[in-house]
């Protein structure tokens, strides 16, 4: 077993690439952890698509308000300077290119930046897309945080997504437990290896050609 990055370390690494003052939308799962690792001296403002800019951390039991939740339907708090708005305004922020960074989990990412994170396409699956397709088309930079492979060892970074796409050619950077991987015109390229991980291991576990760090 390799060392690599933990879930928290992946989130912390992703946070390093978000500029000060950015408006950020965090997907459900590991992406949510990004908010715990804002680098010293920076501030991010969190958007949640159900109508809130300036989302704060989870509430204590006393703070909890049943009408104050995020897009993952978890109860949240607000920071001073927050604003509420309706869904059309909220998705204007997304589709209109006003959100700087979106950090998403995924099922698959392809070497051309295609992402598939909403449906397995299984015949008996109930389709549920939420705001995923709006986010990947509208937000300026799409980051993905994901384990490098599935629980059964299949690569999640692939030549071509086998699952139905959420959006084509939208992902710019991927943060896995093994490496930071860029989507470039030449396909995947490792930008950084996790501690104790060598390029060969990353190459083996990637389902598409991948270039070593420059």
């Amino acid at each position: 077993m390799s060392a690599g990055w933990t879930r928290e370390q992946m989130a912390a690494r992703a946070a390093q690439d978000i500029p000060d003052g950015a408006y950020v939308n965090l997907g459900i799962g590991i992406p949510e952890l990004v908010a715990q690792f804002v680098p010293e001296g920076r501030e991010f403002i969190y958007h949640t698509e159900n109508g809130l800019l300036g989302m704060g951390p989870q509430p204590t039991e006393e703070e909890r308000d049943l009408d104050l939740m995020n897009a993952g339907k978890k109860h949240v708090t607000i920071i001073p300077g927050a604003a509420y708005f309706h869904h059309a305004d909220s998705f204007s922020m997304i589709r209109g290119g006003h959100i700087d960074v979106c950090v998403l989990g995924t099922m698959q990412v392809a070497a051309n930046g295609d992402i598939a994170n909403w449906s397995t396409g299984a015949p008996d699956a109930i389709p549920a897309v939420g705001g995923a397709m709006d986010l990947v088309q509208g937000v300026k930079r799409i980051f993905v945080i994901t384990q490098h492979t599935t629980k059964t060892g299949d690569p999640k970074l692939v030549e071509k997504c086998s699952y139905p796409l959420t959006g084509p050619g939208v992902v710019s950077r991927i943060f896995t437990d093994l490496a930071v991987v860029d989507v470039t015109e030449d396909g995947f390229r490792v930008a950084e290896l996790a501690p104790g991980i060598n390029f060969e291991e990353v190459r083996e576990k990637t389902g598409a050609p991948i270039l070593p760090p420059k």
Partner: protein
Amino acid sequence: MINKQYASVAEAVADIPDGATVMVGGFGASGSPIELLHALIDHGATDLTVINNNTGNGEVGLAALIGNGQVSKMICSFPRSSQSKVFPELYRAGKVALEIVPQGTLAERIRAAGAGVPAFYTPTTVGTVLAEGKEVREFNGRPYVMESWLKADFALIKCEVADSLGNLTYNKTARNFSPLMCMAATTTVVQTKTLVDRGGIDPEHVVTPGIFVNRVVEVTQPIHEDVLIAEGRSYP
């Protein structure tokens, strides 16, 4: 003097006919008009097409309406949730149809209906199965999908404060789709926690102007869906 107040939730939904298209405000449990939904269950209209972001939770509110067999079609962005079992079962049994619409497109289609815009272009769903069969057109070298407005016969809305002219404010993220749905329905029915006289809401703070609202019912102690579910309740 104009006064849009109705005496009860029962009266406010009494003329919703079978086969109506009904928008229901709320995102998950937040903003869900439980009392109006339960009145609609009591009323019994069937073959409804319901527009909501989700499909309800537990066995109350929207989930109960679906579970009661009154809904023939759902239009929503996310029909799954950890506490939503009613819809998946009926859907798999072929008893309720589903039109899946991305959340931002759903919001914009509803707004478009209220704004008199029959169609618009969005980048959302380009290159995906959800764009199949839809017109794709390039603007400035980028492809966009054409989407049409989405109207309803009725909207069922929960708000925080309403005045007798139908001006509304909401509570926190319970606002979500509700102001849009008020615009897009022929008849908008609102349950409000507090009903005030005209002038009771600062004109600068009105979120939904009264022109978009037809009926207001005061429900001073609205039950929150989360509370009903935590108590394991079902309806009827």
